[in-house]
């Protein structure tokens, strides 16, 4: 473990800024002083320090939201807001909980990758891959880096867009993130550039991977395309109990951004995130969102359709097992004519787990020709589990067409009987039906993710029969 003192302001620090950041820890609790310190240690420009302080004051002022899951067990005074990675992740392979180890075994994840996932090994050998990607990108003017490096290398970009999609005052947790953010990705795609392979946060060499308060900013200039992916299907062990990320996406006219995230935090984590995109004329944003782990998730990816013919597609899967509450959903705000949104949500509750869909579709007055369709399907695997649906549609324009449907049920006896009559065990039959249930979303994932998710569902299902 490195214990060097931060050498703030020196040339060396600017050259190898990560080392400065990693050798500092903010101690327990949150105060204006700690926020100032975080900004100071990272040698940030003054405007970012002011943004952080504004975020901090907003966080202190804002009351805790009164709806949704119970987040009262979070003790803000007991949390560490800025940690070097070695303190946040498991110290050694032996500290990793056995349940997670055995899942890795079953998933057949290579040893090196396992260590990366648990943070035992901060840098995976994807370094080489990352470098070749990086070179390729620079040639076409694409920026793909972590936010801290981004802030040093492209401050003008961040100053211009940071907090414009998700302002600090949006909610208590976006305020907290603004105050103490660290890590996350900066992605910038120049006009007309189409990136033909997914940018995975996984490849970014940075020990800040999977940070507590990640801040991601994606800017797609007119006519560009990018597929950004973060997270992974294998369980990620984290000793920190609160994760509160903010993701801002700006899709300029005619651009298309696909954002895929699969999150599988360990079961002690409160995952309270704010993800939002602004989409302009004829732009498209596609969110593919999977929530498997954590104790409580609150996540409602939002699309603000702000230009004529802008389009937003949201696909999400949630799986809640024992002691888990997945409160996920989607929001589509139609602020321009002829915009369209399509939301598909699939959820599975088992062993007393609870899934909730919470959604909003809003059509402003005068936005003629708007189309929106929402479909929520929920599967309950036993009598102890729970499924909720809380959508809201606010329609202020008659020349629009809005639909919503939701259904909750369990696996049909007839389906089970049929599969078992073909020689499958009950567990196999159930996992096959569940795979079929989420298939429309899984097929949108890249192959390796889809295969891993399928295996994970299979594993989860084994425990839920008999």
């Amino acid at each position, binding site marked *: 473990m490195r214990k060097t003192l931060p050498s703030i302001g020196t040339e060396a620090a600017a050259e190898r800024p990560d080392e400065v950041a990693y050798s500092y820890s903010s101690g327990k609790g949150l105060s204006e002083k700690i926020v100032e310190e975080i900004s100071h240690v990272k040698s940030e420009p003054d405007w970012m320090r002011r943004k952080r302080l504004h975020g901090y004051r907003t966080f202190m002022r804002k009351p805790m939201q009164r709806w949704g899951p119970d987040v009262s067990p979070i003790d803000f005074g007991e949390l560490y807001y800025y940690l070097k990675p070695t303190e946040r992740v498991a110290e050694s392979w032996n500290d990793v909980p056995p349940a997670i180890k055995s899942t890795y075994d079953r998933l057949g994840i290579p040893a090196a990758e396992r260590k990366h996932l648990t943070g035992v090994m901060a840098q995976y050998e994807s370094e080489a891959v990352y470098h070749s990607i990086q070179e390729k990108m620079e040639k076409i003017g694409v920026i793909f880096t972590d936010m801290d490096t981004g802030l040093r290398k492209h401050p003008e970009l961040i100053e211009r867009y940071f907090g414009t999609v998700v302002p600090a005052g949006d909610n208590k947790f976006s305020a907290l993130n603004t105050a103490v953010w660290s890590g996350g990705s900066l992605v910038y795609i120049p006009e007309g550039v189409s990136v033909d392979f997914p940018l995975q946060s996984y490849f970014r060499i940075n020990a800040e991977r999977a940070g507590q308060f990640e801040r991601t900013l994606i800017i797609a200039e007119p006519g560009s395309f990018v597929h950004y992916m973060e997270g992974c299907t294998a369980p990620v062990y984290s000793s920190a109990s609160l994760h509160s990320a903010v993701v801002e996406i700006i899709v300029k006219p005619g651009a298309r951004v696909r954002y895929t995230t699969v999150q599988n935090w360990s079961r002690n984590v409160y995952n309270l995130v704010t993800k939002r995109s602004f989409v302009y004329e004829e732009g498209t944003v596609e969110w593919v969102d999977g929530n498997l782990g954590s104790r409580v998730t609150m996540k409602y990816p939002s699309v603000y359709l702000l230009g004529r013919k802008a389009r937003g597609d949201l696909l999400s899967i949630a799986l809640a097992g024992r002691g888990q509450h997945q409160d996920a959903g989607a929001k589509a705000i139609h602020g321009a004519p002829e915009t369209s949104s399509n939301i598909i949500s699939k959820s599975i509750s088992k062993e007393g787990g609870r899934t909730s869909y919470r959604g909003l579709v809003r059509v402003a007055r005068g936005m003629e020709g708007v189309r929106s369709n929402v479909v929520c399907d*929920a599967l*309950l695997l036993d*009598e102890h589990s729970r499924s909720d649906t809380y959508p809201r549609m606010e*329609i202020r*324009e008659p020349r629009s067409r809005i639909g919503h449907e939701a259904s909750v049920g369990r696996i049909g006896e007839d389906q089970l009987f049929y599969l078992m009559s073909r020689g499958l065990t009950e567990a196999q039959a159930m996992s096959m039906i569940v795979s079929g249930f989420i298939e429309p979303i899984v097929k949108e994932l890249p192959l390796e993710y889809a295969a891993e998710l399928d295996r994970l569902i299979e594993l989860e299902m084994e425990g839920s029969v008999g």
Partner: protein
Amino acid sequence: MDIKVSGSAAISRPTRCVIRAGVHATVDLAGTQTALFILERESLLQLVNVVRNHGTIEQVVGIELCGTGARAEVLAGFHGKGRARHSFDITMHHRAPKTKGGILIHGVFEGRSAGAFTGMIKIDPGAQQAQSHFTDNVLLLDGATATSVPKLEILADDVRASHASTTSGIDERQLFYLMSRGIADAEARSMIVESFLHPVI
């Protein structure tokens, strides 16, 4: 006060009704503001409610399916004009096994009127083999607005619960068809409005 309803009745003030075991009741809510229905074993409630006016109305209706095999069917129609504000909040609470609930709401809003429909289906743990469905369909004209909030809270697994909600304007093709048959614009509109409300009136 408990009222035992059998046969057909119209109620007009805040009311709590108990439908006794095996009784089939047809009740016309006729715009009553607050009503709570408690259904005992094998009882049947058929609830109708039609509101057509320019005014403001806020209705809150609760249906508690407390006895095994209880059933409730709700048909509600709303036609708001001018500056009308129609709000209808209904909860279908399944507290016993084999209960059935069905809610169908059709609303037409014209002028600067507004409709707000909230429908909650709750199924308690142990209320197995419950079936419940909520539908609200809204037709908006002129500068009217609508809010729909269909909700589900399902705590039993051997159940079927669903909701569906649509909001849209008048179908220009229907209007065109009628007008091509020589029907004036205003009359064609009113025919479309009436046919939209037909399933619930």
